[in-house]
């Protein structure tokens, strides 16, 4: 991989609103064909980052390149290569699902088939229903459909599965899998860590406008954060031990022959790692403020 393969490239991105720094020096790259998740608490700067890359907001300083173009100057031809699923939409929706998608398909040079896309988001039965009559989760699926109708090279998904039922979410995951196989590069934000774990190749964790970690999904947080945890109950209450040798710990517990109560061995999920990182970051900021 060479640097020219980066579809998105961000260097020292800053966004300041009056005295508040929404983004405070964020840098990352997304390679062609990669799915990258931007994770973080509410207000951490995820949407600000994604909207700067989509061309909706101007940056205060730093560099950004999306498909080789500064998003601040992106024109029609550039937009034709993007798919955007925004976090909030609330249009009046006086068109049917099919009408909306057929209309938007005309904007692009090589759109996907309308029926194919409607099927991909599982709205075949709602194809002739006015969008305003759909449920929140169904409307969200229309947003996703509109994001992919133009066969984008780069797809932005800002909390795409909010309001989805579990079945719709699985369907969405399958769809993303197909888009990846076709070569689509994807930038995703989500609060569902299982979703990020399932879909993305790499993730960046953003908190307080700073990127606090970045890496492959199975490496983020470092090896230390991935050490398995053994939990059980004894006379003193709930016990927990992080160890590279969970088997040995369990064997030791069983030395007196009795079965340990509530025994479990867990490998930290992305969610555990994420929560650990965000908490550690908050604690570090508090320490910093106390020493001032």
């Amino acid at each position: 991989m060479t640097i020219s393969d980066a579809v998105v490239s961000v260097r020292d991105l800053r966004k300041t609103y009056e005295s508040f720094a929404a983004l405070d020096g964020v840098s990352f790259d997304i390679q062609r064909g990669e799915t990258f998740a931007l994770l973080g608490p509410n207000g951490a700067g995820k949407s600000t980052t994604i909207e700067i890359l989509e061309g909706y907001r101007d940056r205060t300083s730093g560099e950004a390149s999306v498909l080789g173009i500064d998003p601040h100057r992106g024109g029609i031809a550039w937009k034709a290569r993007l798919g955007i699923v925004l976090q909030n939409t609330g249009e009046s929706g006086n068109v049917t699902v099919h009408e909306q998608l057929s209309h938007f398909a005309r904007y692009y040079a090589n759109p996907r088939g309308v029926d194919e896309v409607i099927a991909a988001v599982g709205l075949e039965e709602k194809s002739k229903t006015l969008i305003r009559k759909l449920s929140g989760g169904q409307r969200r699926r229309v947003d996703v459909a509109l994001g992919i109708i133009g066969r984008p090279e780069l797809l932005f998904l800002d909390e795409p599965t909010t309001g989805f039922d579990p079945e719709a979410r699985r369907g969405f995951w399958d769809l993303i899998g197909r888009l990846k196989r076709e070569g689509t590069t994807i930038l995703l934000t989500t609060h569902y860590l299982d979703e990020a774990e399932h879909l993305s190749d790499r993730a960046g964790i953003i908190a307080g406008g700073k990127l606090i970690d970045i890496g492959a999904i199975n490496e983020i947080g470092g090896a230390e954060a991935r050490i398995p945890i053994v939990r059980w109950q004894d006379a003193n209450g709930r016990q927990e031990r992080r160890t590279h040798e969970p088997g040995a710990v369990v064997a030791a517990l069983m030395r007196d022959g009795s079965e340990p109560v509530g025994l479990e061995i867990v490998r930290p999920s992305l969610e555990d790692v994420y929560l650990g990182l965000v908490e550690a970051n908050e604690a570090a900021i508090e320490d910093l403020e106390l020493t001032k």
Partner: protein
Amino acid sequence: MTTAAPNNAAVMVTPPLPAGRTIRLGISRIGYEVRTYFRQGDSVFFTFLFPLVFLTIFSVAFSNANFGRDAAGHVVTAADYYLPAMLAAGLLLSGLQNMAVDIAGEKSDGTLKRLGGSPLPVFSYFIGKIGQVLVTGILQAALLIVIAATAFGVSLPSDPAKWLTFAWVFLLGVTTCSVLGIALSALPRTGKSATAVIIPITLILQFISGVYLQFNILPTWLQNFAGIFPLKWLAQGMRSVFLPDSFKTLEAGHEWNLTGVLIATVIWLVVGLVLCRVTFRWIRKDS
């Protein structure tokens, strides 16, 4: 990496956009806009049917009133008198009020944000909006004229020159009002406040420009003030088409002054275009 695509991952290439798509998409937008317009009950009533409702009310309420006589001695009825006024009101409502409220709503509900992130040219969007006003405005005017003639016995002009005047006043008026509506859509801060901001403007204009009240009974200073705005001129142009020629003595300067109608409307059209160019944005950045 070599230039050849690896087998396991496709490389996506977006073909260039075809030429001439701005106009083609604009025409496609007209159909889309007209369809959504007629699915919105409130805008259909307050912009499309409103002049018809008022024509009916005035024709019935003032059915015994005498608005004057034409050269042949026929009485000019309330329906005769109010048809041109309501045609002018239709231009203002379908054009200015509908556009300003509609676009302010689209700004705040995210429609424009979505379009701004798509490869739709701004100009195509404008073609769609102005085309929608043109289509609905023509339907509205046709409905008004047909009902006035059939239900209220209004006799229509037979002179082709009058219809030619109608055509250019209508087309220029519809375009100017649409463009001004697009410009005014920048005024309301939210979609919810749009009607509260826009309707007082259009309502006052209608009262001082000879739509609801007879223009010649207004004090001269108010007539002069109304003359700053385009509606007074459009109403005057419409009166020149549908009222007997002798009624021109009631106008300022005792003439229809179609040159004045043309100049005033074209000036407002240019003002509107400049305002659109300066104020229209898909989204307010950094809001």
